[in-house]
């Protein structure tokens, strides 16, 4: 019995050993997934951020790696080796992510600190800005005051200038009025002068015409210019001897004289009768007077106003020729008609 048991046991043992040897006989030296997991672990474990922030996770990855390597050494099933390699891979990734989280947390803290710094800086700047703006406001107020002052002075000046302009405008207006009045007056005066000149010219023309006519008439009358003006001498032949009656032959002359006086109503005549020295003074005076009167009368009969004809007898007192001979005496026996000037004045005998 004992021999039988020992024999089965030995057989079993032999089988077991063989099986074990067979099963784990071909233990490969490497597995690609394990290699990859180891490389990833080495990389991650080299990062100090990971080492400091995820040591536990790294340790767990390391454990899986060790188990995988042990399984490989022992010649375990590849499934087992690769299972632990996979776990090692994933746990390495966990550690890496943990490192990133720690990094992010640090960045969050830094950002918050930065935010505070910005706010403080902003507040400091704001305070400065407010100081600056207060200063600016003060300066602006000062400059406003200056500007207001300047504006006030400018306004004052403008007002004065406006007043001056107004005064000037008034003066100009007054001047203009005066000038206008003057101009009107001048125009009127000019017009008057023109009218006057025209009238004067007309008058002058008329006068010229008149004078010419007068001259012609005088010439016709055979009046002579003397120092007393124009004088018409009517000779002795116009009267009958010793009488004061005008002969028919004198009528033509009387008509002419009347026509002249009618044409020249401003003229007057002085009829002076003269005799020679024969006979007495008083008779001669009386005769000369009557002859002058006769002529005057004849003129009046010809519609000549009486106040225009003055008659006077001067007798023998004003001879014009020598009374010692007949010719002279005949000459002295005359009637002189002295014409007035245009004013009706007859120059007196001197």
């Amino acid at each position, binding site marked *: 019995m004992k021999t039988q048991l020992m024999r089965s046991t030995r057989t079993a043992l032999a089988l*077991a050993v063989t099986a074990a040897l067979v099963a784990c006989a071909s233990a490969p030296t490497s597995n690609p997934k394990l290699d990859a997991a180891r490389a990833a672990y080495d990389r991650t474990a080299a990062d100090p951020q990971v080492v400091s922030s995820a040591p536990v996770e790294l340790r767990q990855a390391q454990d899986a790696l060790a188990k995988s390597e042990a399984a490989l050494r022992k010649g375990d099933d590849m499934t087992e080796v690769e299972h632990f390699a*996979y776990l090692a891979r994933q746990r390495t990734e966990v550690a890496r*992510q943990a490192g990133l989280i720690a990094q992010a947390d640090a960045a969050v803290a830094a950002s918050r600190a930065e*935010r505070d710094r910005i706010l403080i800086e902003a507040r400091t700047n704001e305070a400065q*800005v407010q100081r600056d703006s207060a200063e600016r406001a003060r300066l602006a107020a000062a400059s406003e005051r200056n500007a207001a002052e300047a504006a006030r002075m400018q306004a004052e000046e403008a007002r004065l200038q406006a007043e001056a302009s107004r005064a000037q405008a008034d003066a100009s207006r007054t001047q203009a009025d005066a000038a206008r009045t003057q101009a009107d007056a001048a125009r009127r005066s000019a017009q008057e002068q023109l009218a006057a000149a025209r009238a004067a010219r007309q008058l002058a023309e008329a006068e010229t015409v008149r004078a010419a006519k007068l001259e012609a008439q005088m010439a016709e009358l055979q009046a002579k210019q003397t120092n007393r003006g124009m004088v018409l001498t009517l000779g002795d032949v116009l009267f009958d001897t010793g009488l004061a009656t005008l002969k028919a032959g004198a009528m033509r002359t009387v008509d002419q004289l009347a026509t002249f006086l009618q044409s020249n109503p401003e003229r007057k005549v002085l009829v002076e009768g003269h005799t020679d020295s024969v006979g007495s003074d008083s008779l001669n005076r009386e005769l000369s007077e009557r002859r002058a009167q006769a002529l005057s009368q004849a003129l009046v009969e010809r519609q000549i106003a009486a106040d225009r004809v003055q008659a006077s007898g001067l007798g023998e007192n004003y001879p014009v020729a020598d009374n010692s001979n007949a010719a002279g005496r005949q000459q002295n026996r005359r009637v002189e008609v002295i014409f007035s000037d245009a004013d009706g004045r007859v120059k007196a005998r001197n």
Partner: protein
Amino acid sequence: MNIKSSPLRRPSRALATLSVIASLVFLGACASKGVAPVEELANARASIAQAESAGALQLAPVEMLAARDKMNTAEAAAREERFVESRRMAEQAMADAEVAERKSRAEKASRTVAELKRGNEVLRQETQRRP
């Protein structure tokens, strides 16, 4: 190999027993079913739940998909008494969930950093604009 002629023909009882146990252990290591990996399955489930609450479904979808898939495989294997495979799948699912969870937290932290930096930039511009 002739066992009858080897020195092992007359070993001590202890040595023989030890050898048997050793070989059994060896064989067991390569061939024994073992017990159901209850602890590993529970840990894996907890890790997945933790990852989900960290928002890993949006922030680490690939890892979460792998974790859930392996979880399912682990549970199926346990039901079918393939305990070694179940243990392995559970351990891997837990590792995947942990990666997913850390990745999500890292992503959130990175976004926070970016936001704070943006905020600081805006603040800087605002405060510089004032004068």
